[in-house]
């Protein structure tokens, strides 16, 4: 499934870019993520717990950041595999300065496999949107919190 959209972070572009490369921040912003563990340059392993309605499950995941072109773009690949199936998101994120901060636009592919794919068809689109929104909301919160402590 194709995904695309945009979100404005209330941060200057360099700051927005840096926040999104920070594994500690990503670990808190990725919905359900229980922290990232570095496995290589820009590669992390993560444990995720998804809980959506009665759907719940633990996922073993991977996060990879590639094609970095600071501060304007990078690729983010997030994969999770669990008993209920697997999810994979692969997207190019582009940053641009706009009024009020940085607009992050994303475009990519979301894949869902296993049992989840078969029963959640009508929910995948809405769920993907919700997860992405949560991700950016938390990113903004994280950035604000960091700014507040700095």
């Amino acid at each position: 499934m194709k995904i695309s959209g945009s979100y404005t972070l209330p941060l200057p572009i360099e700051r927005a870019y840096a926040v999104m490369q920070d594994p500690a921040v990503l670990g808190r912003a990725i919905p359900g993520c229980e922290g990232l563990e570095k496995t290589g340059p820009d590669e992390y392993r993560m444990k995720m717990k998804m809980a959506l309605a009665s759907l719940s499950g633990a996922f073993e995941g991977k996060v990879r950041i590639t094609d970095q072109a600071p501060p304007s773009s990078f690729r983010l690949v997030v994969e999770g595999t669990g008993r209920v199936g697997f999810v994979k998101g692969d997207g190019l994120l582009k940053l641009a300065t706009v009024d009020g901060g940085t607009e992050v636009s994303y475009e990519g592919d979301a894949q869902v496999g296993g049992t989840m794919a078969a029963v959640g068809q009508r929910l995948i689109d809405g769920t993907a949107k919700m997860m992405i929104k949560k991700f950016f909301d938390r990113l903004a919160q994280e950035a604000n919190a960091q700014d507040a402590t700095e």
Partner: protein
Amino acid sequence: MFPQTFDYTAPTTLDEAVKLLGGGAKALAGGMSLIPMMKLRLASPEHLVDLGRIKELNYIREESGALHIGATATHYAVESSPLVRTKCPLLAETAAAIGDVQVRNMGTLGGAVAHADPSADYPAALQALEAKIVLRGAGGDRTVSAAEFFVDAFTTVLNEGEMVREVIVPVDTSGVSYQKVPQPASGFAMVGIAARVKKAGGKVTEARIGVTGLTNSSFRATAAEKALEGTNGSAADIQKAAALVAQGSDANSDIHASADYRKHLAVVYTGRALIAAMGRAQ
């Protein structure tokens, strides 16, 4: 189709249930969504609290100008209750449109509301009725409006350990109609429109439009409501108002209906629901 092992408790009082929920248990009402998820192991709760034996949760009664419906009242009970049919026909009509007979016999109002499926039928009616939802947690009851309650897909304001206790809908004398486009496989609403209209002196004095299925969460189409209020409620007025129903909404898309088609259906069915409601308005 074999769920993981789980503990099962069927308390007979609300207090016991709330205590168990506070300990991390998951509430089981009609089980129409939860049980299939468990059988597919998409959900694997460790402890289920069956609310089905709690008598104090299963009622439909009228109190000071409103209907109070307990969380475990089944869709069939709502659909067939003489009280609901006469005093809040929109809710009865909506209940009758849910799933199939078996689902309506088992599924409950509280369960459906708490589950907050973006394509569920009830939320449209509850939005249009400006219903109140009473939640019970360890700290006692709190009451929220339907508009506050539904946050996002499967997401409500319910906190951990909290449950839906009852739904309060007004005694309603408006002209009403619930119109849905069922998804051909599941019967869920691809779009569901609940409309209420009051008329006086030839003018529409109040219009309420609840929408489900279109986006991640049910909502009230306030722009369309406002456009209709104060008009004569003619076919042209209705079309103008209906055209606003999906405006700005981030419609969902799947193999059964694209976002554009969903929005179009929302407009068409808002028109149809309003025409029907107008016809029944005094």
